[in-house]
């Protein structure tokens, strides 16, 4: 894994915070009033089309990461883990789920950066809805540890906890 990819991957997963560009201070050359509502760096790349809104940050991170050669291997690994977790949830084998989540921490692969939203909904969210309490609890515990570990991009785990956090 090249250092460039490693760094980009950590930022994309939310393990490290991305460096924040300093905002321009107010000055006499700024035409917009001080109570500006639109961030200055929001849309510098629009090719002049209507309503071309900024994409979610995680998509931007995924696009940037996908330019590295190592990305495809990471993505395949994440897809395999998701399928395995999905089948374990389906078969309701708590011990196997706990073992798997201990061996492969979710914060390292369960992310929109590697997985499509549709796959996540079908393989994880739907299976969580169908599975039993102990299995959900195992996944929620993993989500909690991920929430503690991650510095950003915790939306997916927050969603799981919000939905099934009281499963125990």
């Amino acid at each position, binding site marked *: 894994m090249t250092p460039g990819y490693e760094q980009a991957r950590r930022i994309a997963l939310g393990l490290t915070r991305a460096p924040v560009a300093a905002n321009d201070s107010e000055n006499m050359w700024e035409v917009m009033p001080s109570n500006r509502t639109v961030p200055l760096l929001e849309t510098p790349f629009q*090719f002049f089309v*209507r309503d071309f809104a900024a994409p979610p940050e995680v998509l931007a991170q995924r696009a940037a990461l*996908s330019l590295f050669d190592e990305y495809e291997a990471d993505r395949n690994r994440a897809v395999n883990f998701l399928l395995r977790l999905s089948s374990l949830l389906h078969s309701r084998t708590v011990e196997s789920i706990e073992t798997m989540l201990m061996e492969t921490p979710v914060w390292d692969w369960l992310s929109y950066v590697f997985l499509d939203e549709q796959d996540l909904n079908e393989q994880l969210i739907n299976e969580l809805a169908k599975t039993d309490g102990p299995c959900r609890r195992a996944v929620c515990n993993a989500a909690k540890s991920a929430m503690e570990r991650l510095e950003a991009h915790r939306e997916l785990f927050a969603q799981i906890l919000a939905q099934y956090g009281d499963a125990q």
Partner: protein
Amino acid sequence: MKHFASAMINALLLLLFVIGTSCSRSESEQNEDLAGQAFDAMAEGKAAQYLLLTEEEQAVASRPPRYRSYFHVQDVQVHVSESEPDTIHYECTVPGPVGVAFCIATARYYLLNDQFSRRIPISGYLRVITDDDGRRCIVPTDKSNPFALYLALQRIGDNDFTVTGTVNPQGDYQSDSAFVAALSAATVAVSDAYGRIIPGWVEGDTLKSELENYVANFGEILRSASPNLPPLPSARSGLLNRWPWLKSKQFIFWAVVVALLIIAGVVKGAYYLGVKINNRVQEHRRARQFSAYGSLFHIPQNTLTLALSCTVGAFDWDVMQPKHNQHAGETPDLGILEKAILFTFRPAVFRREMVNLCRNLEKKPADNAKAMSAGWCACALGRCLTRGLSPHKVQTHRKRFDRLQKRFQKEVDHYVAVRDELVGLRQANIQDLISNTKDTKRRNSRIKKLQTKLQKLEKTLRDGPVVRAVRRGVRPITYLEKMACDMHSHSKFEQQGAMMGLLPFLIKHSRHKQVSPVLENVVKARNEMISSDSEMSFFEVRVPTYCTKEGYGVALGEVLRCANPSMTFADTNQIMELATAEIPGVLSLLTHYPLRIIDPGNREKEGFYKFTPFRHALWTQYVPPKDEGQVIRRYHEVLDMTLPNSTGLNLRLFTSPYDVIPVLFHEYCHHMEDNNEASVFLRTHMFCQYFYRKYRAADPKKNFAFVYLQNLLGTTPDPEKYDKLNNLILTYYGEQEPEHVAEKKTDLMVDEMNKQILMFNQTNRWCPDKTFPLLTNEGDKTSLDTIRSASIRAATAPRRITQQEFNERLENWRPQ
């Protein structure tokens, strides 16, 4: 440099004088040298060779001494008078007996000896004689001389020790008692020698108290032990000894004077050298800049140099001086645009050139080329007017220019009065002709006089107040300030040029009370220009079509600094290097379709980002105040937004050298006549993948179009997804229309616009005779054609690609 040279010559003369005096060696000096060498040799125990000794004494002295005496003579001064060259007067100090005794007993020298064992001053005379062998020898004239003491101490151990064998030559003793015995023997022997030769100095009590003091401090003294004598200053080493005249007050006075002169010369020389080096550095920097501007015009630097030297005349820039005389006409002349760009970067204060620039400031030039030229002239004039201008003088120049303007106005009034009188007389003449009155002789004479006067006045008035001001050395900053603020009388590029020209000076002296009001006005004008709702407000990078990447980089930097002086932009030359390397042919796009820079601070006006085929504004040019003053004309301004680079780039794209490159590629694809947005987006996406992989420092996350397409099409775009791309483009650009439908829609739109124009013309009460022309063939045909062609082109442009085209683009994404 002259001062420095003179100082150096003075110093050289002084040095020669000194050397000259030392080179003439007389007999007295030779004897003095001999005495000095003898004194020096005592420290090494080799002084016997300089002394006249008996054979027996010579034999004893030539034997190596058993104990080293550590006898070192200091503070030696020898003097030989010219009248008696064989007699040498000497003064010196010899070591005290206590220290010498301890040194002999311990076989070490102590650096603190002189502190605890008093040195003994001796003075006297020596004589120099020549022996039978022709050798020059020294003979002491009295008994108490240092050479006698030296010889006596050399012989210790042979006869003078009463307890033979007590003293260990290595200074190591088996017991304290052996050491004490050795010390006692040495003290006795040494004091005996001193007592014999310098009897007054070794009295019992004195020696005893000194010995007690030495013993009491021996612990400290011991720490300063050294196996050898410290280096002794040579008896002949001091300049003062060598040349006693150095001590004279007169010499010291002159030496101080000369030293001060040398210091002054050196300081002045260093100053001039610093100035010279600084000038060289500046010249080098200018030359490099100049080289860039030479390449801006695709003219070799030498040719440009010669051209300027011929056309400008008294140019003061060294680098622009012709190498040899050239006949005018042999070299090409530069146009006003090239000169204006050159003067922007290298302002000068030549009035002739400034007048030339003033004369090219046109009011609202219709022609794009003239507008570009006028803009750069305004910029160059701003730079020239502010070159070397003190901020304290701004107000003075403003007042002088105001006075000139008033005087000019008076002359204009006078001209109008004369002209009116002439018109009146001519009308009267016509009346008389009709009524057959013959009395017109006097009137005709008056008319002739008035005609002559009018011609003279016209000649005087040919130069406006600006040209007059420049000719008289007044710097009409106010004029440029008004130009920057007046969007009615001047084109946008002229306004921008005036701002570009003034801003470096205004920002540099922004806190000065005379400058800050001007700056405030310019900032306000800039804000109004950006905030105007015409949706046409931007800063343009207009350059000649033959501009090179270096020249374009420089011009881009100028415009960006003007567009937002508070921002830090990337090196524009680096941007251009990247752009031309990755998009060959991009210069053609940039020079034919000027980049438009917009400030996203004005994001409230989303119009900047909305695609419309054209932008239309209705302008009323008037003499202030608004709604009251005389309207000069009413006209349309239409911009074709379907052309490449027409919509404008966010100036924040230029804060990094990478961000703007994909956008330029997108526009370049359109420039290469690919008007299919789906195709261009796919090409741009493939370029982005290539570009971001090559330049890892670039940040693809900021490129939203890339982010969308990367997630939509995948890392390796899937040809099966071609329809997804088409749908995305259609969402934002709409379906392609057949030409006849587009024409019909455009005609309806123009009709609607004409109706509104007509309604305005009918209801307007402010100078109703000046109406807006209708958008018809009879009215404003140019604007009508622009609106029609842009609208139809935009509506009929294809927005879909087939799967086959998609595959082709993946293979060959660069436009051919």
